[in-house]
């Protein structure tokens, strides 16, 4: 860094930049190639380039089904969206709840509970999924026996089980994000509000929750993304309505179709936009 001559200094600078470019090629290269191929009029889903086409996105000929015309794929997208929405709402509420619990309240076992809460992030997704599958299985059986057949249906693999399974670890993430923000809140602001005539509930509503908003939005976006792309845990809990990762996985085991390139591009755009949004909210947060 403080090399002996101007020349070796610029040589080491050049090497450093070269390395970074290599890394960027490694990380971005595959994505660029997939994006290009999504518009490539070549049913082999590879090079050579055979012309520009939007068929993989929209086409309903018998041998070429575009993503938007693929009923099953669209259903999976809708399914993913529904799950993600539910998971986001529940996890954000839990996140705010837990943030207030850990930052504002003192109680016996608080440290222990905090460590426990980190558990879902540490445990492998496979173990999370299988444990919830096993547990819900026995509860559902018990409900069926106690209250009649079909009583435990909502705990069988399906929408609600997937939601609950994802909430188990997504709520930890939202809690961490919101807690980090709440820790930086100066409680004397609430006291000032009450001094000026607000009730405690009012003060929390208008001052504290307002302050938390960037973190809540950020946590919501992260929760949505985590939910949307989750596989390991979801795989064990899914019923007959696959989410996007599930349906992609099952199709990929049989081979690659160019439509999957198109799906990838769509997901890249959506997650990219959401990611940038989350990023910019984090930046506001640091202000």
């Amino acid at each position, binding site marked *: 860094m*403080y*090399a*002996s*001559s*101007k020349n070796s200094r610029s040589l080491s600078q050049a090497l450093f930049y070269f390395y970074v470019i290599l890394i960027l090629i490694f990380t971005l290269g595959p994505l660029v190639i997939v994006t290009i191929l999504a518009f490539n009029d070549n049913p082999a889903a590879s090079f050579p380039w055979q012309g520009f086409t939007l068929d993989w996105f929209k086409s309903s000929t018998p041998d070429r089904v575009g993503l938007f015309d693929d009923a099953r794929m669209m259903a999976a997208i809708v399914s993913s969206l529904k799950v993600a929405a539910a998971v986001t709402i529940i996890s954000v509420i839990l996140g705010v709840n837990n943030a207030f619990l850990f930052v504002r309240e003192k109680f016996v076992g608080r440290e222990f509970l905090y460590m426990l809460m980190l558990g879902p992030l540490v445990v492998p997704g496979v173990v999370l999924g299988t444990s919830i599958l096993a547990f819900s299985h026995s509860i559902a059986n018990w409900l069926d026996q106690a209250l009649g057949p079909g009583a435990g249906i909502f705990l069988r693999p399906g929408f609600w089980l997937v939601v609950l399974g994802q909430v188990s670890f997504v709520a930890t993430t939202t809690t961490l994000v919101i807690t980090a923000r709440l820790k930086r809140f100066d409680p004397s602001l609430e006291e000032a509000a009450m001094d000026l005539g607000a009730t405690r509930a009012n003060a929390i509503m208008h001052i504290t929750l307002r302050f938390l908003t960037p973190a809540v939005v950020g946590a919501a976006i992260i929760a949505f993304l985590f939910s949307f792309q989750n596989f390991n845990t979801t795989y064990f809990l899914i019923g007959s309505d696959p989410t996007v990762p599930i349906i992609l996985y099952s199709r990929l085991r049989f081979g690659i179709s160019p439509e999957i390139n198109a799906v990838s591009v769509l997901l890249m755009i959506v997650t990219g936009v959401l990611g940038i949004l989350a990023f910019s909210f984090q930046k506001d947060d640091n202000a």
Partner: protein
Amino acid sequence: MTQEIDVSLVQITKKFGDLVAVNNVSFDIPKGKFFSVLGPSGSGKTTVLRMIAGFETPTAGDIYIGGERVNDVPPNKRRCNMVFQRLALFPMMNILDNVTFGLRRRGGINKAEMERMAEDALARVGLKGLGKRRINQISGGQQQRVALARSLVLDPTVLLLDEPLGSLDLKLRQAMKLELKHLQARMGTTFVYITHDQTIALAMSDTIAVINLGKIEQIASPEELYRRPATHFVASFVGENNKLMAGRVTRMLDDHICEADFGGLPMIGRAGDKLKPGDTVDLFIRPEMILLRPGKHENAILGKISEINFDGSHSLIIVDLLESSRPLALNVKLQHTEEAPEVAVGDVVSLSWRWDAANAFHPVDQSHIEKEA
């Protein structure tokens, strides 16, 4: 008497883009002396130090250390070492490893010898036996001394100090001031100390270079700087001063003594710039050199005490001048000696001073002065 020169800066300029941080600066630092560079923040003093150390390269000009041109020599090969502003001690090692770090880089010294040299350096700065402790286990003053030991163990030609006393509390700073001066005198190493705090510079240095906005204003001994400032900036920056603005030179009593009119009041002072009758001048008067006598006296300026601020060994007395058409006031520092007069608020007093207690300069652009503040 030729002084051996340890560090020589010849017409050094440093630009950062369009910003000229150091503007054609030249000076020599004699061997074995305590040399300070004094200036406000943003004056360029840190840049000058970093160029001597080798962390910045001059845009123009040459730097010589020990007679050898070092512009292209990287910092790890120069014969100078630096004590950083926030000390930059290595928290991942204990004190002994910190001090032997430079020795380890040199090779050819076996482990036992290195430890002996390090223990020796630590003893010299008064930290005997603390080698095995870690950085966060010692006090701020002790950390200072570890930083010193770490550099001194390498026996550098020049030791650069980037305002290391700034972060210490007042009492510790006073103590360290003296310690540093004694250390330098004992070891004979050339010290180059940069600071914005003139009390430190004045107390410790053999020579001070005052720098402002990238330019050297004056290089002189502390006493010379104090009594005979060479520029308006030095007069206003060094030491406390009364500053009377925009007087008009009425006559020159000598080559370098002038008399200036301030709203009808004549005042004498040393001519810091080349002055002639009719010039506008600012007059700087040292508050401790104003003689204050109760009542009316010949050849003195009449004033009325408006405030007395007791400050331990002296009082700061604010006197409104009575015979000027402008509202002027002077601060007088009155030492509480046996002979000091008893005065009270509202008293009429006479103020007088020797011609060389005051310095007159052409005023500078006001905006410069705002920047310094």
